[in-house]
């Protein structure tokens, strides 16, 4: 069994830490690590995606901004209606931007392990939520990670600190 840090240091790594590239003066407060598949998607597929909603920020730029907010010490959201994190059950969470859904889980508070991502419109049109949830669960089960492997809570405050300003 291994810690998250161990898994990012293996050769080849089982997980890759996503460096948010925060600005000077901003401490990394929450962190994201990625499966090899998610890393490949971020590097190869995401840059080619256009906004299905026709937004000025591309999905890649939306994801960058989302990662910046997630990893900073700012509240993730304001109020109850704007949900950048959504629990899909079985300890699976999605990190959301207007055009994207990234699926993963929280082994520790403020530590998100992303497994797979895709265009939100495509996921909805093809009803792929269950498939992605299953993929996260299978990846998590197969991962040589210390138990307990995930936080079971379904409230965002169970998995992240400083979730809501309100």
């Amino acid at each position, binding site marked *: 069994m291994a810690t998250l840090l161990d898994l*990012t240091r293996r050769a080849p790594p089982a997980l890759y830490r996503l460096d948010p590239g925060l600005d000077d003066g901003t401490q990394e407060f929450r962190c994201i690590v990625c499966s090899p598949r998610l890393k490949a998607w971020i590097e190869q597929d995401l840059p080619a995606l256009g906004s299905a909603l026709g*937004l000025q920020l591309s999905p890649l*730029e939306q994801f960058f901004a989302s990662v910046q907010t997630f990893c900073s010490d700012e509240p993730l959201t304001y109020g109850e209606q704007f949900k950048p994190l959504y629990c899909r059950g079985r300890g699976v969470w999605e990190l959301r931007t207007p055009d994207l859904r990234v699926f993963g889980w929280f082994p520790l508070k403020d530590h998100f392990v992303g497994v797979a991502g895709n265009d939100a419109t495509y996921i909805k049109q093809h009803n792929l939520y269950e498939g992605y949830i299953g993929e996260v669960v299978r990846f998590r089960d197969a991962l040589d990670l210390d138990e307990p492997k995930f936080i079971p809570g379904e409230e965002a405050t169970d998995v992240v600190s400083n979730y809501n300003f309100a």
Partner: protein
Amino acid sequence: MSFQITISPSRKAAARFVTTVRRAIQKAYVEEQKSGLTQTAIARALGVHRSVINRELRGKKDLTLGRVAELAWAMGRSPSFALPKTVAILNSNLPPVSSASTSAIVHRAVGPASAVPANNNPASVVALEMAN
């Protein structure tokens, strides 16, 4: 092993700014909700359907600068905007400081050429203030 999202410095700046403005509007709306403000009331004040306001608040519709001002007005706020000069400090996690007071620290002026988006908590740059 770690990696970063590959994105140009200018687009990083755009992504940060657009997100900062949206979050400022969301924060103002949630604060005003406590006083009874609703999306329906904002929509009525601006002469649009409530779904338009909903999509704008959620980030599913882009905001023009004019719309930012209209939303602020409808929430009893006034937008403020500033373009402070940016200075990045190399190899440091300190906030930017004026070069005059830190001669011992290596500084790099930030502009389109060097393209290092220096810090500055964006929230300090854009705000929706209570209207007087």
